[in-house]
């Protein structure tokens, strides 16, 4: 840099000197010579200052850039956020990029933490849920331990113990399933396969329960309907929705499963004639351990629909619900037609 500057200045001085030697030799006139010299030095000076100014400007820009990058490396986000980004200048554009980069960094460092938090809340939710049947069990056990207990009473107690044990094992099973899903231990395999078979598998799981309540199940789906989806887990998701439908349906009603192909999604409707869901709860029923106030007399813990939503979302699909109180609900599962 120094060398090049020196060479540049040197050559300018040599050209100037040669020009003035030429003036002296051929047009000797003291006034012309003086004027020319002054003019020459003035131009040299302006040139020199301008150059210095431009260089300074660029050095400043690089310096600020260097500082901003240092803030970024030091994770001094407060300073990064203060960078000027709202001018129509090049600096401001570069600052914007630095700000974006800081965002990406912050997000990435937070992601692991978020997953951990999710898992923690899942575990604390479940352990909270397990506590109640555990306490019940303990109480039943104390009651059983008494000696002056009749045979009938004993049987009754044993029966409720069995119920509580079932509840615990169901809870633990759910916890294992959802935690595996949540930490990505389970990879869903989306492969083109027959949706009809998947629906049949889901229905097979609830047929007995449906018969007990004399609920008819109608399926409207082509017998060969190829759609990319994970067979096992999609069946689980549909099963949970169906089971939920049966739980909240009165005796002698109907549940319909209807498949419809749309432009980008395949829609699977599960239509029941149950008690219905209030509109303000539409978004909540898929939350973990959410239970409607009106449903506390029905058995359940509120993990089925949550699992269903997780499974469908992991296949880039979604679930929604529409419902009229007293007339029934329609759960719609959307799965993308493409891979």
């Amino acid at each position, binding site marked *: 840099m120094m060398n090049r500057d020196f060479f540049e200045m040197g050559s300018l001085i040599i050209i100037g000197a040669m020009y003035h030697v030429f003036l002296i030799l051929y047009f000797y006139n003291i006034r012309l010579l003086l004027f020319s010299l002054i003019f020459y030095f003035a131009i040299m000076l302006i040139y020199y200052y301008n150059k210095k100014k431009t260089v300074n400007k660029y050095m400043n820009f690089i310096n600020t850039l260097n500082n901003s990058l240092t803030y970024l490396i030091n994770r001094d986000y407060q300073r990064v*956020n203060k960078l000027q980004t709202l001018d129509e200048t090049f600096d401001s554009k570069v600052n914007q990029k630095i700000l974006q980069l800081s965002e990406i960094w912050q997000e990435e460092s937070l992601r692991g933490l978020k997953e951990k938090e999710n898992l923690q809340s899942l575990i604390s939710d479940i352990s909270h849920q397990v506590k109640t049947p555990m306490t019940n069990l303990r109480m039943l056990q104390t009651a059983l331990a008494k000696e002056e207990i009749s045979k009938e009473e004993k049987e009754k107690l044993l029966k409720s113990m069995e119920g509580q044990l079932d509840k615990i094992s169901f809870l633990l099973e759910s916890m294992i399933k959802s935690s595996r899903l949540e930490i990505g231990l389970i990879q869903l395999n989306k492969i083109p396969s027959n949706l009809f078979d998947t629906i049949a598998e889901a229905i097979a799981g609830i047929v007995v329960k449906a018969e007990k309540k004399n609920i008819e199940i109608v399926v409207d789906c082509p017998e060969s309907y190829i759609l990319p989806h994970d067979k096992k887990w999609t069946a689980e998701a549909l099963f949970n929705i169906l089971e939920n439908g049966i739980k909240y349906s009165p005796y002698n009603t109907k549940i319909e499963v209807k498949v419809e192909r*749309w*432009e980008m999604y395949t829609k699977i409707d599960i239509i029941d004639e149950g008690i219905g869901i209030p509109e303000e709860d539409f*978004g909540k029923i898929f939350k973990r351990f959410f239970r409607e106030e009106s449903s506390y007399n029905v058995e359940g813990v509120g993990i089925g629909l949550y699992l269903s939503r997780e499974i469908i979302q992991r296949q880039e699909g*979604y679930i929604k619900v529409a419902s009229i109180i007293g007339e029934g609900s329609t759960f719609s599962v959307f799965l993308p037609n493409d891979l």
Partner: protein
Amino acid sequence: MNILETIDLKKYYGEKPNIVKAIDGVNLTVQKGEFLAIVGTSGSGKSTLLNMLGGLDNPTSGKVIVTGQDISQLSDEELTIFRRRNVGFVFQNFNLVPMLNLYENIVLPLDLDGEIIDERYIEEIIELLHLEDKKRMFPNYLSGGEQQRGAIARALATKPSIILADEPTGNLDSKTSAEVLGLLKRTSGQFNQTIVMITHNNEIAQLTDRIVRIEDGRIYNR
């Protein structure tokens, strides 16, 4: 990480005693990658709120902080630059430029800021939104759903800090609405894109990660 935060946000119109409190002390935070729905009836103040979140309007008092910058007191010129670089909009009536084909519409915000076009990313968006065959077509030849998908692609193109969607399915039939929203949700997940959507429709809102309700300019987290 909070990408968006409002602190005691207020917007009043008119003067005493006929003051209209369109937004009356809203505190809202939105996380990066979150898909949030703001649900309210017409006149509840939801559009006013969205305008302030997107820097289309200045609040009477309070702060709007987007990626750490307070935008509530910026000048019009600064707001214009802010919007171009940080916010993607999806409107009810699509707002595609009729003289440009779909692809040109999608990359327009990048062209305007003289940015390099990330071809691979743009192709990914176009594929995800099923617009491969429509790229060279002009908006007038596209259906409403296709136009709205184009508008979503345009909003995504600049990788904005936040996408604001004002009744994005207001002009679509229920079937197309469901498909467009499904795709919007998918893009939010795939690109970890923060989206704030305004709607009056509970059925649509349930697709989002979180729903807040607005009534008479106040927020209810239910």
